[in-house]
């Protein structure tokens, strides 16, 4: 009984630590992460196999600090120019459950890094890798695919609706429609 208690306490402790860590000095800083899963075809369709992950994604999408940094970068790098606050505009919506190129964090990282047809530019070399992970973690929070305590609260800004943290937990359905506005030839 006592062992169970200690173990569960330890689990809580570790979970809490990771969720609140402020790991600002990214690690590793020199090598670009190469997630196997990320290598899905560069065209619409379900994402690839999801077995082989480095676990790096968890470090980002379950960490409040990373998600919050991702939220800032999302605006700073003008992602809202096409995707608005996640509802989509000329780019697809990010807060729904449809994921054209796969909705796991690894898929999203690859989408940002490599770009996608019909308008999504590649940010390889433009955004450092750890920041791409942070942005992807934030994007995962838009559909509440991250733990509630780590998801962002409202911003000090005009309120577009309930913050990520207050949205119901989402699912990820691979595949989906590219919005008509984004289907013009590039």
């Amino acid at each position, binding site marked *: 009984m006592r062992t169970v208690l200690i173990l569960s306490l330890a689990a809580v*402790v570790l979970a*809490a*630590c990771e*969720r*609140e*860590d*402020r790991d600002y000095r990214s690690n590793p800083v020199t090598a670009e992460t190469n997630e196997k899963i990320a290598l899905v075809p560069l065209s619409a369709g379900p994402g690839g196999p999801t077995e082989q992950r480095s676990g790096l994604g968890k470090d980002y999408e379950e960490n*409040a*600090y990373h*998600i*919050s940094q991702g*939220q800032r970068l999302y605006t700073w790098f003008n992602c809202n120019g096409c995707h608005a606050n996640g509802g989509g505009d000329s780019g697809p919506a990010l807060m729904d459950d449809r994921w054209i190129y796969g909705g796991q964090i690894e898929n999203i990282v690859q989408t940002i890094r490599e770009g996608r047809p019909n308008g999504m530019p590649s940010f390889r070399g433009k955004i450092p890798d750890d920041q791409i992970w942070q942005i992807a973690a934030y994007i995962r929070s838009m559909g509440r695919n991250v733990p*509630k*305590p*780590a998801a*962002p*609260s*409202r*911003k*000090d*800004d*005009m*309120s577009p609706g*309930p*913050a990520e*943290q*207050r949205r119901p937990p989402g699912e990820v359905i691979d595949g989906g429609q590219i919005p008509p506005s984004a289907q013009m030839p590039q």
Partner: protein
Amino acid sequence: MTRAITPHDLDGVPEISRLATGERGGLPGVQSEADAPPSPDELRDDQVDGAELTARLAKTWGTDRGLVGTLSTVDHKIIGRRYIVTAILFLFLGGLSAVVMRMQLAVPENRLVGPDLYNQLFTMHGTTMMFLFGVPIGEAFAVYLVPLMVGTRNIAFPRLNAYSYYVYLFGGLMIWVAFMLNIGPDVGWFAYVPLSGPEFSPGKRADFWAQMITFTEVSGIAVAISIIVTVFKLRAPGMTLDRIPLFVWAELINSFVIIFALPAVVTASATLMMDRLVGTHFFNPAEGGDALLYQHLFWFFGHPEVYIIFLPATGWVSAIVVTFSRRQAFGYIALVLSLIATGFLSFGLWVHHMFTTGLPQLGASFFTASSMLIAIPNGIQIFCWIATLWDGRPVFRAPLLFILGFFFIFVAGGLSGIMLASVPLDTQVHDTFFVVAHFHYVLIGGNVFPLIAAVYYWFPKFTGRMMSERLGKWHFWLAFIGFNVTFFPMHITGLMGMPRRVYTYLPEMGWANLNLLSSAGAVLFFGSFVLFLYNIVSSARRGPLAGPNPWNAGTLEWASASPPMPQNFDRIPVVTNREPLWAHRGSLPVVAGLSVENREQIVSTITHGRADLRESTPEPSIWPFMAAIATTILFVGSMFTPWALVWGSIPLAVTLMGWFWPKPSTEDER
């Protein structure tokens, strides 16, 4: 115990006099149970005497052994002792975090702790010292001493008092556990928005801070109410308003300040949590909110807070100055009026924390005037104490030494406060180490030195043993020198441009030497507390026995045994003088006729202290502890989901019903 009276001595003793009202309990024309004559089967304290009376009362008022008994106790002395020990433990934790900070600042560009940990450390330091030590320590002493000093057997709402302690303990544990788990708040002890708001404090760190506020303030308000009612209604017969000990006056005024100040910080922290959790916009300028609104709310509490910390200390100072001057207090009325004036004025100063926020200038200068004006009541107190010493015969024992340290340090801190009250000067020194120096002079000088004096003074009452005088003198000089070496240089570092809350500074700023000096002083100062701890522990085991009144003091707590029996007094004293034990050296006038088998105590009238009722006070109960656990579940849960307010209220309601449900045989309330 000397046998002074025989059973049935009550014949001929008046029932109605200037000491009792003699009014019926029920309304005119109503046959009330309140006026039913006491059961003849019940043993009363005029029927037994001496050791037997002591033993029987101790059984009636005692606390059961075992875990359940320990957690069920409603004895104000046991709860008060836990309160004091817990608050002093938090003082040590807060002090430790300060030492780590001083180590980090000892040299420029130090890499001992990074900015993230440093920010958590200073937040924990401030939060612990203000909310887990500063407010509770004054109330803790009140819980222990006020019932003894007003001559009653328990605090007014003993179960509420027990509940308050557990809520405070759980709140303190919660935030320290969070800190150990790296979820410690990192937003400063006043947690300004937007930094502590939803956008800039991701995760749950700021929520732990805000919820800790809820814990400590719920408990603080509840204890304050218990103390007020104890002083209003439970005073010994004959204790008119002008015979209330100065310590009790200070705790009474303090409790009033608490009742009116703490709701402001609860409002601030609750609205902050709402902004963070359910997306309200109180502090969001883009949707009509305002960041300064938070500061107004916080400081409307925050300035009275300083006096919440200081007022109990004035009580300690008054008690010790009087006892060790061997003279009754000079200017009793002036001292009481100054306390009241301080209490009122403390609500009119909050804007002086916000002089650099760009408020309208005329308004700001009003607060300059009011802030400087508070020097008057404080000056009156200082002068009256000095006059008492002047006309007395000072006895230089450890308690008085620390009080002299208090004068030296606190007066300096109060005077540097006058600089901060000036709007233009404040623009230079606000949020610098000058302010850090100032408020440590005020708070350590104004609270911690008197506290240490109070521990040396009342330790014999708490434990029955004297503390080592030799160690006490060493302790004093170590603390006094350590304190000044730590904090005096900070005035200068602040003037040289060092802002507070920086985790490091550049070598070329020229602050290194003074910071190193401060750090060295901090080690010395902390060492003095280690010596203090050693003195407490060793004296509690091996100190010489004290007897009931080792200092030959005049107030009623010294009429009880050391440590006091569960019933405090075998019979409730009757008070005819401000210093009853100095007035009655041969024998103690008492009331008789209370039950020996039930927990009866005398309820008296507010102004004249005339005995009015013999009301029974609650038995021990496990339910306050359970209710505190239910409260903790509700509070912690509501950091994560607002629905915890709904499901968390069910166990709370159940425990409260258990708490208030009367036992078959006795009458219990609160």
